[in-house]
């Protein structure tokens, strides 16, 4: 009996060792985002997309360099900057050289500082920060550094694209801006006022309002004010429950114009709006899911829904992150010399699976891509939340804000 146990154990050990031997070849990407707590739905959705994109776009195509595979290693940061720094250290100690994070610009600000410091102190063991969703403009302006790369359009770029579309509509006379009372809500409002003032000085901003974040039970009084102001359209940077409740309340109380949002889709929001959002709800963002731009894009979404039926690839840019990283590693010819990989990544041009051209600007490491105004509709091939409703690209701003100014003064190694 004891003998069998010993034999079984040594067999298991042998398997384990050979398994590590195989995995040692893998190039690991640390995914540091909330996987528990109130924002877990978004975090897990991002993780699923990363895993699927790594398998589908890189590993099944033969990997990078001489057949090395991407492996996504998940770390739960509970959306706390402090916890994120601990997880970053754990990841670095495990020998991981690529850090992906996106939820909350507060976390991204903490990580970008910590990574910059770490890289200066440990030139043999540097890491690269792949920011796939944190949109605070400061990250590619005052707080930029050589190791940080942003793959999402930042808040200013999105507003630039959105106001391009609004400015082209002569029927617009009155605009109402409403947002959550914290840094991001204020940034959205400031950008809207700035860009509208430049592009359409004749448009009147009839309301510019902040409400307490996450504390409003009933948005009806706000909806009444919006109605009373006779606004033609509403702009909001709200997310989560605040997004859903504001939108529903405004629509219920008789508003019929467009509601332009940053985060008015997926993670239950699309399903909860359902029929009521059709014709009004718009989302500004990158990545065109509907109509699919190519068979390859359609196959990606179909494959993702088969692998993860309960979630959606609602952050399509993650596919760009994975593809561009693979390309940079191949160009640099190394997955260990991070400065080489970073130099390969900056300035890179790439054709996205979603049909847009991508350019990682050298000057501030902000990606430039097509930004779409997408409408909430049931006229879609791929829905969100398995609800029959989804987003369909309506207007496209090609290579939005490609020549936008930046205050970034980057120091290169």
């Amino acid at each position, binding site marked *: 009996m004891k003998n069998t146990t010993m034999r079984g154990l040594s067999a298991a050990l042998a398997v384990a060792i050979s398994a590590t031997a195989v995995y040692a070849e893998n190039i690991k990407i640390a995914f540091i985002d909330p996987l528990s707590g*109130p924002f*877990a*739905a978004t975090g897990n959705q991002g993780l699923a997309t990363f895993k699927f994109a790594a398998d589908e776009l890189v590993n099944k195509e033969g990997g990078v360099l001489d057949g090395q595979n991407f492996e996504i290693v998940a770390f739960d940061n509970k959306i706390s900057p402090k916890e994120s720094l601990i997880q970053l250290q754990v990841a670095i100690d495990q020998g991981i050289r690529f850090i992906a994070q996106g939820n909350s610009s507060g976390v991204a600000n903490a990580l970008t500082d910590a990574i910059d410091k770490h890289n200066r102190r440990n030139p043999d063991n540097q890491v690269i920060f792949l920011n796939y969703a944190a949109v605070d403009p400061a990250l590619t302006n005052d707080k930029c550094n050589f190791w940080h790369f942003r793959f999402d359009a930042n808040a200013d770029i999105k507003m630039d694209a959105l106001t391009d579309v609004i400015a082209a509509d002569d029927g617009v006379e009155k605009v109402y801006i409403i947002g959550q*009372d914290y840094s991001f809500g204020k940034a959205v409002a400031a950008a809207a006022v700035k860009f509208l003032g430049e592009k359409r000085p004749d448009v009147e901003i009839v309301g510019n*309002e*902040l*409400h*307490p974040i*996450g*504390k*409003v*039970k*009933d948005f*009806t*009084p*706000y909806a*009444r*004010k919006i*109605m*009373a102001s006779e606004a033609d359209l509403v702009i909001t940077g709200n997310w989560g*429950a605040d997004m*859903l*409740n504001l939108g*529903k*309340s405004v629509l*219920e*109380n*008789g508003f019929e114009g467009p509601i332009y949002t940053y985060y008015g889709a997926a*993670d*239950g*929001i699309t*399903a*909860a709006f*359902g029929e009521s959002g059709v014709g009004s709800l718009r989302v500004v963002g990158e990545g065109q899911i509907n109509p699919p731009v190519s068979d390859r894009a359609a196959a990606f979404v179909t494959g993702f829904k088969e692998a993860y039926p309960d979630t959606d690839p609602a952050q399509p840019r993650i596919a760009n992150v994975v593809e561009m990283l693979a390309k940079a590693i191949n160009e640099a010819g190394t997955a260990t010399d991070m400065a080489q990989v970073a130099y390969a990544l900056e300035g890179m041009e790439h054709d996205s699976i979603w049909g847009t051209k991508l350019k990682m600007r050298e000057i501030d490491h902000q990606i430039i891509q097509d930004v779409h105004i997408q409408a909430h509709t049931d006229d879609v091939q791929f829905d969100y*939340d398995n*609800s029959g409703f989804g987003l369909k690209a309506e207007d496209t701003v090609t290579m939005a804000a490609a020549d936008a100014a930046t205050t970034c003064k980057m120091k290169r190694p």
Partner: protein
Amino acid sequence: MELIAVNLIDGLVTGLLLFMLSAGLTLIFSMMGVLNFAHASFYMLGAYFAFQISVFLGFWMGLLIAPVIVGVLGALVERYGLRRVHQYGHVPELIFTFGLALLIEELVQFIWGKSAMPYEIPEILQFTAFSIAGNAIPAYKIFMIFTSVAIFLVLLYILTRTRVGLIIQAALSYPKTVEALGHNVPLVFMGVFGVGTALAGVAGVIAGPVLSTFPGMAFVLGSIVFVTIVIGGLGSLGGALVASLIIGWLTTFSKAYNVRMEDILNGIGFTTPDPIWDSAWRDLWTLTSPQIADILPYILMVLILVFRPYGLFGKRQA
């Protein structure tokens, strides 16, 4: 002028919804002396149960069945939880209900996930009842008003005009005597707890489609319910109604009108400091009423506690 009428209706809806929650809570408190921290969680359970039932049987069956399930759950919690903890005093009871609130929230997330549920207004009520100067009043709001008023009237009738109400009222003040007269007081307690939580369940069922059904819905409403019963006077049904309506109108009106602190201070006779961003009082000067609308009820509570500690309609207690 028209906007005032619209806001009066909106505030009434908010207030009546709050009343359905606080009515149960205040009844339970006056009877058992327990502040039920889990009360808003039963409200959330009501919404989730009703959503689940509405998927299969439609909204109206949800409205009928969900509160009953919530009420039975509440009664079971009283019978097998609170009653056992009761002998150890009030603090363990408080901690018990507090733990229960956390447990229910986690359970809801475990079963239904963290995203909002697509719980919809029934199609028959998806129309505009009437409009006042372009402001639509959805039929569902009218339905909410009638439901809550009906519930208030039924409760009032039962408590003041029936034998059951008589026994409940008697058990409130003299439980020992009532018990000695041969009434089953623990059963009365269980019944009151069940009905109280069922009321919260009804509130959840009808609020779920408009205020959205998500795991944070109990948290958002939890504290304001306590404020309501403190302002109204602990144990007073009429007080709960008046306080709910005051809070409903107070928050609605302060959100609907941008009253600026600067105008108020200027009106009193202070002059605006110039430039304003250098002033130490900058934050006070730039306040607007929508920003502080949600803390106004708490300020009112503090004032009530200072000047009338037993609440608007509460009986003076030792």
